[in-house]
């Protein structure tokens, strides 16, 4: 895993977060209590001289880890965050991929509508998903995600799309360029508080945190951020281990078909 210059990464992210605050009237951020969104909040604190100038939303289906609730509540207090908990209910009938059987999107829609947020900061990283298709820091929400460059908001030379280009809200991805190991390096350097679930106990740790149903531990002996980084430097498994392998094979075949090989 390639480690980048976190000082430069932070500048880029800080610019995007300030730009969001400047261009939109009602900004909020998603905060899961995981390492990525917590690092993002740290960047925002520094960019705004100590005070995070927007509310943070935790979409809670009630089956997150008890540690996550504690981490969330303690840090919200310590950092004086404006925490909004959007409760998502467990649906009576669940279909395939909806995580944890709850409809997080519905809960989010509700809270966005209730508060009238026009920009939502989401801490996704490109390296999370093998590929994160297009390089988009600002992604208008209600346009079709077509690869039609004429309709794509241009994201060039520090010009980002604002509300003017869309009627819904805009998703903002300030830490898109960070790699997993960069987040840890930043966490270490800035002493960002860490959810204890990331540390190993009895030979296992959690590498990315979802709810208690969908999160699978990985083998690890790392008991500190430093040790986590040392492990990541040599690991060859993807962050989201436990993804369904067959599904990826199907994609391979489909891609080959599309290319005219089959």
């Amino acid at each position, binding site marked *: 895993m390639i480690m980048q210059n976190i000082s430069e990464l932070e500048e880029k992210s800080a610019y995007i977060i*300030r730009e969001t605050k400047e261009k939109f009237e009602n900004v909020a951020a998603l905060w899961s209590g995981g390492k990525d969104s917590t690092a993002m909040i740290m960047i925002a604190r*520094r960019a705004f001289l100590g005070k995070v100038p927007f509310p943070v939303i935790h979409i809670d289906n009630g089956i997150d880890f008890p540690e996550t609730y504690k981490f969330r509540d303690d840090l919200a207090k310590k950092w004086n965050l404006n925490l909004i908990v959007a409760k998502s209910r467990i649906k009576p009938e669940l279909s395939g991929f909806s995580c944890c059987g709850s409809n997080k999107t519905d809960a989010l829609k509700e809270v966005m509508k209730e508060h009238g947020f026009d920009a939502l900061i989401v801490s996704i990283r490109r390296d999370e*998903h093998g590929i994160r*298709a297009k390089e988009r820091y600002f992604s208008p929400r209600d346009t079709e995600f077509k690869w*039609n460059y004429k309709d794509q908001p241009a994201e060039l030379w520090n010009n980002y799309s604002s509300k003017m280009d869309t009627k819904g809200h805009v998703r903002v991805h300030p830490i898109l360029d960070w790699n997993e190991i960069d987040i840890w390096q930043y966490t270490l350097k800035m002493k960002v508080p860490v959810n204890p679930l990331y540390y190993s106990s009895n030979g296992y740790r959690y590498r990315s945190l979802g709810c208690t149903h969908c999160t699978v531990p990985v083998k690890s002996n790392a008991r500190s951020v430093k040790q986590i980084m040392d492990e990541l430097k040599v690991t060859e498994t993807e962050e989201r281990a436990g993804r369904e392998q067959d599904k990826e094979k199907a994609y*391979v075949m489909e891609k080959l078909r599309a290319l005219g090989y089959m």
Partner: protein
Amino acid sequence: MDIKRVTLLGNKDHGKSTLIGSLLIATKSATKQRIDEAKKVSMKLGRDFEPGFILDSFEEEREGGLTIDTTRAQITYRDAAFEFIDVPGHEELIGNMISGASYGDFAVLMVSAKGGEGVTEQTRRHLVLAKLLGIRRVVVAVNKMDMVAYKKERFEAIVESVQEFCMNVGFEPGSVVFVPVSAYNADNLVKRSMHIRWYRGKPLMELIYEAASARKKGNRGLRLLFQGTIKSGRKTLYTGKIVNGRLRRGQRILVMPLGKNAVVSSLYVKGKEIGSASEGNNVALEMPGTHATRGCIGFEPESNPRCGTVFEAMVFSVGRIPKKVQLRMNGSEFMADVSVFGEIDLKSGKIKEANSIKPLGTGKAKIRLSRSVVIESAAECPEMGRFLLYDSGKFAGIGVIG
């Protein structure tokens, strides 16, 4: 380690995916597992090993039911890391170039040496756009040399054709370098190939490494782009980004286009008060007595920036650029009149007279703005001389001053 983004240009089917796959293997940037999988897939299809199969573009992300495939591969070479981005088609590549994130100032261009392929209109279009986007150095990989029996004459013909076009478009002499390769056979990618003994130059990765590490030149004067304000307790501070030069606490600066001098009485970077900040820093500062707004630029007082409403620019058109457009530059928006007076001829790279620019074409225009701005050519300070054009809120094109 910095990851340097490599803009990969070139006609569809001239070997971009194969190149990335081969580089992943040759630089040992791909895991053995991934290589084995690619071998398996190749075998299943009853064909020889295809390095392009290593790319993780086989994983596809689905969003809104649509399949998008952009490939990014991270390649480590010597003490640097490079990220190659590949998109499937010509339109997608253009779209990615003009709408994607910022690029470095160098690109790699693939040109196939195979009979019937060679330098195409797409090749030339990519070069024109690259120049406009501020790419100053191009490494041209003349590919598929294995299919022309590694003939020197074929390589030289392509070099001559690309070289001439590049000079007409405005690349500086010596800023475009060439290497004959076979991406498929990994000839001249990381090591010099025994198949091409007549080539005395460096292999591709070394040329990319050199292009990426070449130092930026240009002026070192202060350019502070004002972004807005933030509140901290009872204080209101200005925010901004230093795109060039240095800024010190206590320094007197000239705020344009206001034309006012102001003293920076306090200066913050990353939440901490500091004595000086430099290029790349997002700053917060106090500046009593001056009301800088978004789009204002801070200079050193002794500098003499040009301000005005009219300038000439090179413009790339996505579709059609109407006479009246919205123009976004340095964070502000303006109404603008655009009068085109020339277009780049894609055959020669020279500018010919024209009063409109064709879709995906590039031309020269005179631009008149609704109010005064700092006018600085992109050659002087790339971050300042660039703008985006919108037609009724829809993205219409990009341009650079000068």
